[in-house]
């Protein structure tokens, strides 16, 4: 949306990737896809969990994956509308 990605744009990128992966998004893949450091990834994952946009799953080897919640899907839909509004009035 702007030259420097803001927090919401980063969260949007992460959520879009998690949606694409259909419940099987691994932390390292999210980190590469969203171009984040490990520290930043942990911080963003915490925030997304706190906002209840994603849920965490652990397999028998304690490996973590993430999937979107209904709230996460709603956020993505609303964010797309907001991007449309910003584009319509050239507010980027």
């Amino acid at each position, binding site marked *: *949306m*702007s030259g420097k990605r*803001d*927090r*919401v*744009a980063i969260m949007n990128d992460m959520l879009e990737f998690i949606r694409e992966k259909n419940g099987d998004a691994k932390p390292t893949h999210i980190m590469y896809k969203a171009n984040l450091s490990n520290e930043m990834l942990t911080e963003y994952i915490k925030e997304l969990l706190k906002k209840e946009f994603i849920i965490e799953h652990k397999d028998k080897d304690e490996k973590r994956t993430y999937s979107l919640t209904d709230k996460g899907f709603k956020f993505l839909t*609303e*964010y797309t*509308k*907001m991007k*449309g*509004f*910003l*584009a*319509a*009035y*050239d*507010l*980027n």
Partner: protein
Amino acid sequence: MSTIFMSPDWFLGYDVIFELFFFIISLVIALYALKVYRSTNQKLAQYFGYGFLLTAAAYIVQSISNYLVYSKLNTQICQIANLASSSTVDAIGTYVYMLLMIAGLVVLLFVSLKSDKQRTLWILLSASIIAIMLSRNPMYTFYLLSSIYLAFIAWHFVENYLKNKQAITLTVALAFIFLWFGTFHFLISVDHATFYVIGHILGLFAYIMILINWYLVKK
């Protein structure tokens, strides 16, 4: 604007409905822009929201002022406030409308300039308000400034449409062209009563375009 001097008799009351419609649409756009700002931190969305909020305030003042002129409430207000004549209420309403509307247009112009210097906004705002307040013909000055500002805003949205040819950018460009022509028409019109009606009808087309745009964005 000033109903006493400009509106034809047959249009009395319809203008209040038009202005209420403009007020509602402006308010919806303003509140959504501020919501977008809270979610995305886009500073331009915040200014855009304030611009439309001022525009909405201008329309509600104009609508109430016009309503008071037709209704008996005007005489009662004059008695309570000890005002010299009933046209004083209309004159105050007109002045407040002009100042709020020009402030809204200045903010929208500032958004279209994409300047990161707030001083630009304050210079434009103070110069516009002073020009209207000190003018011998405030209404003419108001329409002249509004026409210039709306021309630049419309131009900006036409450029945006040419860069990004979509229905959402086209409706915005058309809306601001209608608004500009509705204002510019005042400067060249001889019969201001006809202008008053045409200005409101063009405003209606403009806000219908903004409403269509809102539908396209939200669907």
